[in-house]
């Protein structure tokens, strides 16, 4: 079926972390996409573009969309982690039951 390289505790940790990561990063991606003001200080902005208002606004919008995509990609990575952790967790449970 596959090798078991995580113990029961590590796979449970991975499971919990992945679920949390998926939910939070997806939501953060959504908030970045709708350009929530609360996340204004957490976007990458080049200093050179901030000399005009319109420049600042477009730089901010770029930063927002960039971070939205980053968050969603990270959420996808956590989906992979979820699958791996879940598989390890299931394998750990199975071997302890069949014993």
């Amino acid at each position, binding site marked *: 079926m596959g090798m078991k390289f995580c113990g029961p505790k590590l796979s449970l940790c991975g499971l919990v*972390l992945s679920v*949390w*990561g998926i939910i*939070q*990063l997806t939501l953060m991606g959504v908030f970045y996409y709708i350009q*929530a*003001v*609360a*996340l*204004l*200080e*957490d*976007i*990458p902005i080049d200093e050179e573009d901030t*000399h*005009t*208002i319109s420049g600042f606004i477009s730089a901010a919008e770029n*930063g927002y969309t*960039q*971070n939205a*995509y*980053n*968050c969603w*990609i*990270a959420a996808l*990575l*956590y989906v992979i982690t979820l699958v791996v952790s879940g598989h390890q967790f299931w394998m750990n449970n199975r071997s302890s039951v069949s014993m």
Partner: protein
Amino acid sequence: MGDLFRSEEMVLCQLFVQSEAAYVSMYELGEAGIAQFRDLNPHVNDFQRRYVSEVRRCSEMERKLRWVAGELPEPPPPPKISPSNLSPREINILEERIDYIESEIQEITRNARNLKSDYLSLLELKILIEKTQTFFQDQSAHRKISASVQIYNNEGVLGHLGFIAGVVATHRVPSFEKMLWRISHGNIFFKQAHIEKPLKDPVTGHELQKTVFVVFFHGEQIKLRVKKVCNGFQATLYPCPATYKDQQDMLAGVETRIKDLEILQNMFSMDIVKKCLIAECWVPRRDLYILQKALDYGLIKASGSPIPSILHYVPTKEIPPTFNRTNKFTRGFQNLIDSYGIASYREVNPALYTIITFPFLFAVMFGDVGHGLLMTLFASIVVLFEKKLAKKKTDNEIWNIFFGGRYIILLMGIFSIYTGLIYNDIFSKSLNIFGSRWRNVYDNETLLNNKMLELDPAEAYSQTPYPFGLDPVWEFAANNIIFLNSFKMKLSIIFGVIHMAFGVTMSVVNFNFFRRTELIYLQYIPQILFLLLLFWYLCILMFMKWTMYSAISTDPAYGTSCAPSVLIIFINMMLLKETESKPPCRALMYDGQDALQKTFLVIAYICVPIMLFGKPVYQMMAAKKRKQYRQGVESGEVDEHDDEHDGGMGEVLITQAIHTIEYVLGTVSHTASYLRLWALSLAHAQLSAVLWQRVLRIGLSGGSPVNSIALFVIFAIWAFFTLAILVLMEGLSAFLHTLRLHWVEFMSKFYEGHGYAFAPFSFSAILENDDEDPPAQTNGAPPE
């Protein structure tokens, strides 16, 4: 009244039970767990009690079972709960079975040991044969003898020469040889060969080096002497059994449960005349019918004896144990209160209110939606799977603490989500649900040229507040902390005064119940007046400041620059100092403030001597009245209580003085103590913000999609620290502070806590303690 409002009413009962019926009745009572038995034979030695032989039998059985369990190669399966009770006959059968199994196991181990030594002997014999073959082959004439030696005999006779073969420990060989030589005057022939592989000793398990030897001699006398020497040197000579059979250890697992019923019966006293047992027990009044049912059931089972069991109420002046009936939800909160001290009998139970005030005060200190969500989710999962998790008996203390407090954690989490929404703080970010009420009032030029700008609430604020919680704009305000400090400090004082006033009012319930209404006037009224007139007035000043002063006020005396410091007003009130007025600001907040404050102060000061002398004077007057009454009724009787009262009067005065000072100083210090609500919530918010800015922001400040991998890793780090520091550490800290607030600031106002816990005779309780220490404990008699 409700279950948790105060502890249950307890009744002291006397049971008259037939000896035959006693066993079954006690079994029923053990299952029900409603009666706490008092030891009626406290002066009798454990060994002189009536049922000592049964106790000894039970202990023996238990010892044997434990030994059997130790002999098993793997731990035994957990015992199944037997549905029916065990009659004395069944216990006899159980005892026989245990004896039988024990003797079987002992025999098996004995056989195993014998086998091992047999095996060792055989091995030695085999090696011996191999070695001696070389000896005998030297002389061709002896080959015939070696053939016969192999099967049955050890000694052969060749002509006039005999020999003895055997095995001896290697380190003894030199002295062995010397001894043989000496006793035979040199007339023996000794040959030896060392066994290379060490052999295992069956008894000790050590590995020994052995040597094979053959001694050739001539004549019977020398043979005897040689044999004696061999015995002396513990050399094994060889007759050996030939058979070798395999045995496998089979140990049967035993499923049973041993009860301490006989110990219980030892606590009964014997009534010789009626041939029945008498017991005294404390039972909650509501459970008396169960007690009656148990006795009746015992009678029915005990082959219908005509004498019924009698349940007899004993009116007594003793203090009964305190029993609070809890369910799985309320038990956690009751434990929190009981850890401080068991409530006095039938005093009001603070646990009922703790169910709400504890999570609420925790949440005020913890206030974060994200962390509250994490706590709620964890607690919900534990609660949803509580039946399965309860079966897993683990020694992990931390898990047991979390599991026992799962409902407390659940409530704390839910309340934290609520306060998080009020503080508008989710993982240190604010949620803008309803739209901020503040607008930008500057043009683009000003915005470009200034790093920081001030928003005047008269212009930038829309004059209608954000509907629920803190306006999200405050996340970006540089004076965020200053603003929130003022708000949270005032909030903490308001919550504190309400909590303490509630605590003081609880004493009224106690005074009412215990029929001491005079104390309501002599103690409660002055206490509450002192607290409210000073500190609730402080809270009213806070409310007034919040409502009366505004940025858009037309009267400059009520504008923002004229808002007075409430603390300074309060201090000036206590010290009777005059405040200067700096126009256009006014000295006072409202007309008549000076007169009102002075009145409050005077009334509060008058309350202090009432608290100090009220109760002692009342007790003195009551004693005098009693003495007069007694002297009027029974004239000529010497009153011994007079002296006692004088001495007692001093003590009462001192006690009352201590309580008064404690209370008066306590109002000030405890009110300030509630400021920890502000302090911890500030610390939590700042920690959360620092964690986001220093950790998660790194993952969010990259431009390209490659940074998503960095975000993937950094999120894990951020999540770990959020859990470890913000949820666990801060959660534990807030829990501790809330507990302190409850125990010290709240409960010191009314709680006595001098009771002792109700410890009923219950099988489930005994079994739970069985895992920790060995049983055969007498059920606790109440501390005398």
